[in-house]
């Protein structure tokens, strides 16, 4: 009984310590086989990662698989995260997005999605609301809505539908080079607007 209390106390101390840990410190602790560090990373980021996966693969079970894969990869290969190159959040979200897109492209997920989507699969405002229902997302929503429409549509098709820019160009009936340029200029504009709004990359 005494040991159980001690264990609980130690666990509480560890968790409170980790809650203040930076991304780099957290990942270093993960590299030292600290399950509680992975748990803290999960606590911080699992929700958005799951939300993105579910949004993309449109399937609860597959989204869970993606989340599981993302965090197990962090556990088995923490060296892939470089704190000098961005936040842990963007690292995990990028991995989640990439893996989800792989699934969409590789199997019938896309077909399932397309069966449930409208003929023009532009994300609807309601879906956007679902994706962005957090305080900080207000900045993102505002910034995205302020983009010139061609840029916004190109980014939405590419990011939320998991399509290549070539596919987006085909859907929109635009030259591929134009779509590439719109994605780039839109992202740069978004980045600038987020920074102007005080949203610092890497800070959740």
């Amino acid at each position, binding site marked *: 009984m005494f040991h159980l209390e001690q264990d609980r106390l130690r666990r509480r101390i560890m968790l409170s310590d980790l809650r203040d840990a930076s991304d780099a410190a957290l990942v270093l602790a993960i590299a030292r086989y600290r399950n509680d560090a992975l748990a803290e990373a999960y606590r911080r980021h699992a929700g958005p990662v799951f939300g993105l996966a579910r949004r993309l693969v449109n399937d609860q079970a597959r989204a869970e698989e993606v989340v599981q894969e993302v965090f197990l990869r962090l556990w088995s290969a923490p060296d892939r995260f470089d704190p000098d190159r961005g936040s842990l959040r963007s690292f995990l979200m990028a991995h989640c997005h990439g893996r989800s897109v792989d699934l969409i492209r590789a199997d019938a997920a896309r077909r399932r999605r397309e069966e449930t989507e409208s003929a023009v699969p532009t994300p609807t405002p309601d879906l956007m609301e679902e994706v962005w229902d957090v305080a900080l997302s207000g900045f993102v929503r505002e910034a995205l809505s302020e983009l010139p429409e061609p840029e916004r549509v190109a980014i939405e098709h590419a990011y939320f539908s998991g*399509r290549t820019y070539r596919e987006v160009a085909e859907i929109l009936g635009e030259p591929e080079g134009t779509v590439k*340029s719109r994605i780039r200029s839109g992202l740069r504009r978004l980045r600038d607007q987020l920074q102007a709004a005080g949203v610092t990359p890497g800070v959740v």
Partner: protein
Amino acid sequence: MKDMFDFAGDDFAGDDLAGVPEDHPARLVAAFSLDAVDASEAAVVEDYLRLHPEALKELQSFREVAAWLGYSSAVAPPDLWERIEASLDDRAPSPGPELAKVLSMPAPKSPPPTGHQAASRWPSVRWWLASAAAVVIAVAASAVLLSPSAVSDPLQVAVEQLREDRDVRIASLVNAASPVAVEALIDLKGHGYLLAGDLPRLGRDQTYQLWGVIGEQVISLGVLGPTPSLETFTARADLRALAITIEPAGGVISDGNPDGAFVGEVN
């Protein structure tokens, strides 16, 4: 280093891509950040990014933006963490001492180590090895390992004299799974001596390889062969730790094999 995309000052990460050919990978970085390129284009972009740090920086900024785009208030299913945690036990840690402690990167306080969780993981070393790949060649000139044939009595005399030198820097390279310790001594001028004669003999298809931790990078200091004895190497003043790994004969440029590694901090 010139790459296949041969444009003058071709680190296109600024505002203006005017004049940049339509099929140049700089034009694909943004789409790449959204995973919106096909596999063959992704490979081209990755090659480009390896050689163009400004483009890599821009990619990271785009990925930060993308992460915000995908951010939501979704809550992961309650039992998902339990499933993840249950599968962690299946992943056995690598053996070996904790090289990570030689880094200055702040880590959260750890509880007293117990069981296999106490073991450090080589991936954190591989992290540095991977990042060091680009500088291996440049450092090679300043980190030369002499051939085993250079070992002779005068070397042993030098080692004995160095032991008496109060300015000597010493590292004891150990592996938790082995009773053997390899001692390294480094003098003020950066002449290093590695007493590796107790290392187990390897087959002809394998070799020991010496690595140095400099700053936060791990750099190959040379190939020791399958039966090293008293070896010499050149160490920079900012060398912080040494590691010996077992590699295929001939050694590797980077990304050393963690299994059976001997590691020690330079004091």
